[in-house]
């Protein structure tokens, strides 16, 4: 199976400085001949390499406003993080107006769907009997990390769709009926805080088709949207014929770490953010060290989705804005809650196919062959210095030994085992000319 990714390395800009390779949580990056290469089976689209690259050679690609031309009628589904991206006097309704001005035909906010998913998760938690903790499926990076590196925890991921998918499913039907167009002419576009949610749309982890058609990064529309909002406010424009937004606390709070736990109210929960922390907690879960947690909420980004790499506002400032929005709500969002209670159909929100671990072709041979490879690895590791310098092009000495055992590297790639290799690198990195 081919995996789609959002990350692209600009081969001209990349000069093999190894920073990306060192931060990659799944050891998906190798540097060969002075250029970084990403293994598509191991990459989980966390984007940590983007931030680590001193050359800005790695970028994430999302769809753009030009792609709206593919459809006759376009509906935007904004990630709730969008509402925390502007100064406080720009209200959610102004943002919706702005989206219409810049070219969307309608905007759908996911408050009701967030309540539905909230209820669905609650029911799932109540009835579940397997090993704990159950893990929130909110962050696609976390799902992929589990599929790649913690295969035995895949069954602990809550198999319920995200609010945006439920929304897209309904929105398509609704607007097809309203406009008389075919469903395939209605574009449903997610405004995403991160590349990973775009990948979750292009290639859902459970290997089915998403109800969403496109994903555009918030940073991609930020400037035009901001100027449309400010102009609109000056002229007191009303372009949105849908009427004002009804929001509840749930959808907004899900943009923040801990938001799900607060609304789902599991008996004991734990919230973690950022890859190194998540990995530490997952290792403990695998050992059975964490026994008494019912619900685990993990986000790749600091502070939750407000920290997504395609957002514009500072994570902490955005968090405060969302919290302010929640605090300034007049009620709990009674209208939304009522709507959700009326619509809720128990059992209607599961993902349509089971999640499976990602198969790594390197381990798809017999145990006997694997053991031969392991012995090669162990013998080599004994010879290696264990300093993880990375000059062989692998992130650690043991990863290098693994590459050798899989036929992907040669023993002589280690600078301490081969003087020639060192010479080669001196030429490659031009050390004497500087």
């Amino acid at each position, binding site marked *: 199976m081919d995996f789609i990714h959002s990350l692209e390395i600009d081969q001209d800009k990349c000069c093999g400085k190894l920073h990306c390779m060192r931060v990659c949580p799944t050891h998906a990056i190798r540097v060969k001949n002075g250029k970084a290469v990403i293994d598509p089976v191991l990459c989980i689209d966390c984007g940590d390499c983007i931030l680590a690259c001193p050359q800005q050679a790695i970028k994430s690609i999302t769809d753009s406003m030009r792609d709206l031309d593919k459809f006759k009628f376009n509906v935007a589904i904004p990630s709730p993080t969008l509402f925390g991206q502007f100064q406080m006097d720009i209200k959610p309704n102004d943002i919706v107006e702005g989206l219409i001005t810049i070219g969307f035909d309608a905007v759908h906010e996911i408050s009701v769907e967030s309540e539905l998913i909230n209820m669905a998760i609650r029911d799932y938690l109540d009835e579940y009997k397997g*090993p704990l903790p159950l893990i929130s499926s909110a962050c696609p990076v976390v799902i992929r990390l589990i599929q790649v590196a913690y*295969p*035995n925890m*895949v069954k602990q991921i809550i198999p319920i769709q995200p609010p945006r998918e439920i929304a897209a499913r309904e929105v398509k039907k609704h607007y097809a009926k309203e406009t008389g167009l075919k469903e395939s002419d209605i574009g449903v576009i997610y405004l995403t805080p991160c590349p990973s949610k775009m990948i979750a749309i292009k290639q859902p982890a459970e290997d089915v088709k998403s109800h969403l058609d496109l994903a555009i990064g918030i940073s991609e529309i930020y400037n035009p949207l901001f100027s449309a909002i400010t102009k609109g406010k000056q002229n007191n424009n009303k372009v949105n014929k849908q009427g004002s937004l009804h929001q509840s606390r749930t959808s907004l709070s899900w943009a923040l770490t801990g938001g799900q736990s607060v609304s789902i109210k599991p008996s004991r929960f734990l919230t973690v953010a950022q890859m190194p922390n998540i990995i530490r907690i997952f*290792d403990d879960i*695998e*050992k*059975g*060290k964490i*026994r008494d947690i019912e619900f685990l909420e993990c986000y790749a980004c600091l502070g939750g989705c407000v920290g997504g790499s395609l957002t514009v506002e500072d994570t902490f400032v955005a968090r405060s804005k969302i919290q302010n929005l929640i605090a300034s709500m007049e009620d709990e969002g009674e209208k939304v809650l009522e709507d959700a209670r009326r619509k809720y159909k128990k059992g209607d929100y599961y993902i349509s196919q089971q999640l499976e*671990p990602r198969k790594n072709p390197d*381990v*798809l*041979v017999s*145990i*006997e062959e*694997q*053991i031969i490879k*392991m*012995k090669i690895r162990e013998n080599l590791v004994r010879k290696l210095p264990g300093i993880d310098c990375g000059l062989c092009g692998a992130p650690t000495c043991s990863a290098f030994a*693994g590459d050798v055992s899989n036929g992907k590297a040669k023993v002589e790639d280690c600078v301490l085992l081969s003087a020639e290799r060192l010479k080669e690198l001196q030429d490659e990195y031009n050390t004497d000319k500087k």
Partner: protein
Amino acid sequence: MPGTELYQKEFFIKGGDFDKAGEVSTEIKSILKSVGINSDIVRKVAIATFEAEMNVVIHANEGDLKFILTPVEIRITVKDKGKGIEDIELAMKEGYSTATEEMREMGFGAGMGLPNIKKNADGFELTSEVGVGTLLKITIRHKKA
């Protein structure tokens, strides 16, 4: 032959060393993962070895863990020098623990370790001599016989 050893490795466990506690089970887990053992089996072995390792760290002075992989099963033998267990039947009871308050604060001492090992293992043998030490032998099948 089902009994042939494909691979074996021995580990030393130091009593009272909470910094290193869990390293042995982590290494065994990664060995099993890398040779492509089914993930449900890896989970069982990881839980059982972690609990066995912790029991040495908490309740004994030092011990050795021997890990053997055969074409059909995983064998773990943990032999320790320490105070031993007086009443094995009692020690096997869920919730029974002699862990100190200090250890409880670190999250140990729920009295669930031995019962959990037994639950996850296909073969379980526990013998002990007070004042000398404890011997735990477990097997977990990874291939149907």
